[in-house]
């Protein structure tokens, strides 16, 4: 488990770093919300999931999508707007999805995935016999969105197998948690009778352990659970900040926040030779992904109207 957790944390880190380079080179248009610093959460939670469980993700979703099993090569092609991408170039960074892997999509609307995951979990209950769970990832900003509170209330009422995972990176875009959250984050879960815990979101093994317990209780029919993972976003809210030079975090905090690095924490538990071989394999994979993404064809403009409806709309 330690090696596989490290591999995923490292893969996400390097994937994101390559993405930032591709934003700079213009291969990724529109920029990305880098997940750098928060990798242990996606890696730890998704390691506790099965292939047939589902997740909803966020605008900062690359890590979740990769950790749930999407192909990094087709993922990168999607970010580059290529027809070979996961979504055939129709989605991009904020909408990457792979339903065949239970990835119900990154989502550009803060908090929206909470109700979608709750509904999927409700359907799992209804479909009977199975013990699938749904996980909704969201940031600390989403705890001030009404829809998330509606979803948590419904999930608790209906006792559906959903895990709410709050990635508290300290900032809702530029606003600190203390400036945007009255009460506490876990207090929202308590209000609905949903068991919650706050864990170190920089350590994938800690996240994995906490997520596993929550997922197992959901599988046993004990209803929703809530996990607050404390983390720090190492990079910008969005790569646009690299140009716009938005400043809202104290310089000393940006240094201290990076001292505990999820890659080093997970990697420190491995034999150096094993770690090196994992790193090499990741570099080779990402080299292949970048080559594939940058050389794949763009979608044919004549297909711009495809995929809107499942059945023909014109009589």
């Amino acid at each position: 488990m330690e090696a596989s957790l490290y591999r995923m944390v490292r893969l996400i880190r390097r994937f994101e770093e390559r993405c930032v380079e591709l934003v700079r080179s213009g291969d990724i248009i529109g920029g990305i919300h880098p997940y750098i610093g928060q990798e242990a959460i996606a890696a730890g939670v998704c390691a506790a999931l099965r292939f047939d469980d589902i997740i909803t993700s966020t605008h900062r979703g690359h890590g979740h999508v990769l950790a749930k099993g999407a192909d990094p090569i087709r993922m990168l092609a999607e970010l580059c707007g290529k027809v070979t991408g996961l979504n055939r170039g129709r989605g991009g960074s904020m909408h990457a999805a792979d339903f065949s892997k239970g990835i119900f999509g990154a989502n550009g609307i803060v908090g929206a995935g909470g109700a979608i995951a709750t509904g999927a979990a409700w359907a799992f209950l209804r479909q009977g016999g199975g013990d699938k769970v749904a996980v909704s990832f969201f940031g600390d900003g989403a705890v001030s969105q009404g829809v998330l509170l509606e979803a948590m209330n419904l999930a608790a009422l209906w006792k559906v197998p959903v895990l709410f995972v709050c990635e508290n990176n300290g900032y809702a875009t530029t606003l600190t948690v203390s400036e945007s959250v009255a009460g506490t984050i876990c207090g929202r879960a308590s209000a609905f009778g949903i068991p919650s815990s706050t864990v170190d979101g920089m350590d994938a093994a800690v996240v994995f352990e906490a997520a596993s317990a929550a997922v197992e209780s959901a599988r046993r029919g004990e209803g929703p659970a809530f996990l607050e993972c404390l983390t720090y976003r190492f990079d910008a809210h969005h790569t646009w900040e690299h140009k716009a030079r938005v400043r809202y975090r104290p310089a000393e905090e940006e240094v201290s926040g990076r001292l505990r690095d999820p890659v080093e924490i997970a990697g420190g538990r491995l034999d150096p030779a094993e770690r090196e071989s994992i790193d090499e394999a990741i570099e080779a994979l990402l080299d292949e992904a970048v080559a594939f993404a940058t050389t794949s064809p763009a979608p044919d403009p004549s297909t711009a109207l495809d995929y809107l409806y499942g059945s023909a709309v014109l009589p």
Partner: protein
Amino acid sequence: MASVKADAGTISYREAVAEGIAREMRRDPAVVCLGEDIGAAGGVFKTTAGLFAEFGPQRIWDTPISEQAIVGAAMGAAMTGIRPVAEIMFSDFLACCWDYLANEIPKVRYMTGGQVTVPLVIRTANGGGLGFGAQHSQAVENWALTIPGLKIAAPSTPADVIGLMASAIRSDDPVVFFEHKGLFASKGLLPPEGHLVELGKAAVVREGTDVTLVALAYTVPIALAAAERLAAKGISTEVVDLRCLIPMDMTTVLASVAKTSRLVTVEENPHQAGWGATVVSVVVDEGFQLLDAPVRRVASANVPLPFADALEDEVMPTVDKVVAAAESVANF
């Protein structure tokens, strides 16, 4: 049986809603309903009466007053393969969950390159005429018409409620299903089992040669009443019940205009950005040579729907307004 208490052969529009849902629920165990007060209470408009008794709490789910959670959860469930029928009690409340109607449900199939369908029906009680005031009366079908990715049905008769409900529930695409509050008490023929009305097929509900009235839901009986009055004045009126806004059956509308060369749309939504503007734009674009007179749009005034009935009548489409508009183009 669900709610059918009607005499042999007839059913009310209100009962037709439950009957239409019940027929599909008997046919397909994947169909489930969720919404506010739809269970043992049978819905505040009694449009789900009998469903809870027949199908029980595992298929008929009462929800808290949480429009976003209702529609968002229905979307998530639909993407796992079940077929939720979600009720939003008053169509005005669609605004409370508009993110899901505007950003999530209609976009996910497109955004994911066709990976998923959202076989979901959002039913809602639409329209004015009952004195419920501005936040419980508006005709908002044109809101949904602004969104590529949704389908929109708005039946005018009990038979169409049942036939379109069947198509909507069987549709792999999301359908917003507008039930009109002003029509709930109206009665019509009970269609046989298996009755299906294809989405996007208009109906010519009265044939005529001088002017075409294109109507939807509550304005269909208004247009038919106007046609009677116009007949007495020697004007032969064809009435097209559009039945759906997406897909919009412009083939039928253009064929009618080819016959009559005159067009009036009869809409309950406000005039600004109402669905008639889309009908007219297509007719002018594709059928300009068919027209022998300017087109007219009878729609609600561009105000929130007022409370007092004297004011409500003033701003909503009426038979008088339709007769006047049809006469003006017939005599052009």
